[in-house]
C-alpha cells in the first residue's frame, strides 16, 4: 500500500501496513480487525476516522496509543518506535498519547466521586502539589461545562452527557500531545457538543495538540477534521482533505454515508434521494473477496469480487480504493 499523507515535517504518528488480529471467542478463527492500513498523522492536525461500528476504528485508536500490540506493520511516534524504548521511558511516553473512550459508563468508577475521577490521572502521574492538582481538575471541569457541585456526586447521579464530559475533563488534565478521541461527543447534546468541539479546537491552538478523531457522526467529523479517513471492514476506502471527502466523495460507501445522515431540515428542504444501504457490514472473520464493500455496493461488477481495488491518489492528497472511482458520472450527485 503506498503511503497516504506524506508531508515534509516528521509526522507525529506514522502507520505502515498495520494489521491487528484477534482470536474469536471459540478460538477457532482470527478476526483481522485492521487489515493493512497506512497513514500519517501530521503534527497539529485533526485526523478524522469514520466508519461503521466494527470497521476497526477503535482498534486503530488503541493500537496508536499502544494499548494493543499490532499483529503486523509499524507505528512510529515522531519517527521512533515507542516499543523499543526502555520500560520506564515507555510509560512516561505513553502519557503524551492519550485516548478517550466512547463508553462513559465503563470509564468511570461507580464508587468514586466525580472530582476524584478527574483527579485520578494527575495523582497517578504525581503532578504538582495537591492544591495544584485540584485547581487543574476544577479548571478542566469548568472548561467542559460541568458545574463544580457535581464534583461531589457519583457517576450514577449524572446524566449520560454529563458523564461524557467528566471523561473529557479527566484526559485534559494530563495535557497530552496527541489525543485519540473515540466517539467522544456521541453522547453529548447539541449545544454542549458545539462547546466541546470549540474546546478541542481551542486546546489544539493553545497547546499544539494533535487529534485522531474517531466518530460515526459525519457532521462532527467534517466540522472538526482537516482530513478524513473512511474505514470499512478493516481497511481505509477513502482518505483526503475534508472539503473533498465530504464535498466530492469518490467512494460509493462514503457517498452512502453522506446521504444517510439525518439532517435537521424541514420536509421541504429534505431530499428523497437517500441511498439506504441494505444490511450491515459483513463479519470481519470472513470478509468478501476483492472489494470488501461489494456486497452492499450498488455499482458492483464482477471485477469487484475478483480484484482488491488499488489505493490510488485520484486527486492531490485524496486517496480512494474503488475500481471505478475515476469514471466520469460514476458519482450519483
Amino acid at each position, binding site marked *: 500500500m503506498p503511503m497516504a499523507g506524506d508531508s515534509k515535517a516528521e509526522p507525529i504518528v506514522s502507520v505502515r501496513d498495520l494489521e491487528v488480529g484477534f482470536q474469536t471467542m471459540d478460538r477457532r478463527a482470527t478476526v483481522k480487525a485492521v487489515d493493512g492500513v497506512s497513514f500519517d498523522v501530521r503534527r497539529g492536525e485533526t485526523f478524522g476516522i469514520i*466508519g*461503521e*461500528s*466494527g470497521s476497526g476504528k477503535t482498534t486503530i485508536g488503541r493500537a496508536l496509543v499502544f494499548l494493543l500490540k499490532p499483529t503486523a506493520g509499524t507505528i512510529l511516534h515522531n519517527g521512533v518506535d515507542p516499543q523499543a524504548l526502555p520500560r520506564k521511558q515507555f510509560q512516561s511516553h505513553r502519557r503524551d498519547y492519550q485516548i478517550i473512550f466512547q463508553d462513559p459508563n465503563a470509564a468511570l468508577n461507580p464508587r468514586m466521586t466525580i472530582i476524584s475521577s478527574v483527579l485520578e490521572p494527575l495523582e497517578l502521574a504525581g503532578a504538582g502539589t495537591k492544591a495544584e492538582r485540584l485547581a487543574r481538575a476544577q479548571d478542566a471541569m469548568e472548561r467542559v461545562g460541568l*458545574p463544580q*457541585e457535581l464534583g*461531589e*456526586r457519583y457517576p450514577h*447521579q*449524572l*446524566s*449520560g*452527557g*454529563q458523564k461524557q464530559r467528566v471523561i473529557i475533563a479527566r484526559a485534559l488534565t494530563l495535557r497530552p500531545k496527541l489525543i485519540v478521541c473515540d466517539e467522544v461527543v*456521541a*453522547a*453529548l*447534546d*447539541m*449545544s*454542549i*457538543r*458545539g*462547546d466541546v*468541539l*470549540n474546546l478541542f*479546537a481551542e486546546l489544539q491552538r493553545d497547546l499544539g495538540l494533535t487529534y485522531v478523531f474517531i466518530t*460515526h*457522526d*459525519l*457532521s*462532527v467529523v*467534517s*466540522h*472538526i477534521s482537516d482530513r478524513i479517513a473512511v474505514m470499512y471492514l478493516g481497511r481505509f476506502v477513502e482518505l483526503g482533505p475534508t*472539503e473533498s471527502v*465530504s*464535498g466530492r466523495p469518490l467512494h460509493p460507501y462514503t457517498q*452512502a*454515508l*453522506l446521504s*444517510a445522515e*439525518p*439532517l*435537521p*431540515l*424541514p*420536509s*421541504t*428542504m*429534505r*431530499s428523497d*434521494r*437517500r441511498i*439506504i*444501504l441494505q*444490511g*450491515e*457490514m459483513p463479519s470481519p472473520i470472513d470478509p468478501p473477496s476483492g472489494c470488501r464493500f461489494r456486497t452492499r455496493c450498488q455499482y458492483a461488477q464482477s471485477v469487484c469480487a475478483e480484484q482488491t481495488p488499488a489505493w490510488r491518489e485520484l486527486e492531490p492528497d485524496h486517496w480512494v480504493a474503488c475500481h471505478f472511482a475515476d469514471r466520469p458520472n460514476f458519482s450519483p*450527485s
Partner: protein
Amino acid sequence: METAHPAERISGAAAAGSRHALMSVRGLGIRFKTAQGIWQATRKIDFDIAPGERVGIVGESGCGKTITGLSILRLLPNNLSGLDGSIMFDGVDLASCSTRTMRGIRGRRIAMIFQEPMSALDPVFTVGHQIAETLRVHTNVSKDEARAQTIDMLRRVGIASPERRIDEYPHQLSGGMRQRVMIAAALICGPQLLIADEPTTALDVTVQAQILDLLRNLSETSKTALMLITHDLGVVAETCTRMITMYAGEVIEDATVDAALVRPLHPYTSGLLRSLPHLSPRLGRLPSIPGRVPSIAEMPDGCRFRARCPHAIAGCEAEQELLDAGEGRKVRCWRFRELDLPGALQHAASAPIAGRVVRQ
C-alpha cells in the same frame, strides 16, 4: 426497578387534557432524594400524544427526557421522592394507578426501548425466547403460536432468515440486529405507544437510517404512537411529525417539526439550531449558547433560560407559562409574538449543507 406508589403528591393534578389524545401528561413533576436534599428534576410538564402520532422529545443532556419517559412506565430509580401531576392514558392515570394496573399496561400497551439493546437483552436466552416470553406473559397464546408470531415479527423488523435467527443468542447479533430484536420485542404485543429512548444513538448512520425508516413505517402501518427521545434534531426531522423541546426540566416549545425548524418561537430552540455543525461554516467556531443550564440548586425564578437568552428583558423573571401560540403550537416565552427568530433555513444558507441541499 419498579417504583412504588408515588410517595408524595403536591398538586391535585391539573385538567384531564385533550379528549382526542392517547396520552395526556399534565403538570408532571419528578423529584429525587439526593445528598443535597430534594432535587426537583422536572416540573410542570404538559403534552399530549395522539393515537399513531410520532413525537420527538429533544433537549440537552439532563433536561429530563429519559426520566419523563421512565415515569410513564413508573420505572424511575429508587431514590424517587415524589411524582406530581397526572399521566392520563386511555382513561387511566399512570401516575397514580395501582402496581397491578401498571403491570398490565407495561410491555403490552406501552412498550419502551433503550439506547443499549445489549443491556436490555438477557445474554443467556435466545432472542426468540425473549420475544416470545413477552408475548406469553401478556397473552395466553400457545408456545407454537408464540414462536410463529415471533418469527413473523422478526421478519417485519427486517431480520433476514428469522427462522434461523430466532434460536441465536444476543451476542451473535450485530448492534443493528439487536436493536431490531428490541423493537420486535417491544412491538410483539401490539402496543399503542412505543417509547424509544435514543434508539439509534449507538448505531452507525447507515444502520440508523434503516432503523428510523423501520420505526416510521411500523408506526404508520400499525398505528402505534411513537415517543422518540433523542438529542439529535436530525433524527427528529427524519422520523417525527411533532417536536417537543425541553429545557432544564420544563417543556419550552411544542410544535410540528417543520414549524419548529422553519420558525422556532423560543430563543432556545433557535439557538440550538444555530449551534448545529451541519448549519455552521466548517472549522469556524460553532456558535454555542453562552453559559450552561442552571443547576437545580441555582434555578432562577421565572424563565429558566433567562441567563443565557439574548432577548431577556425585565419581566422575564416572572413565572413563565406554556403559552398557546395558535395552530397547535405552544411556547414558554412571553415575548414570542414580538421576537422574529431565525430557523434552520436562515442558518443553512451559510453552511456547507447549502451545497448539498441545492444539489437535490
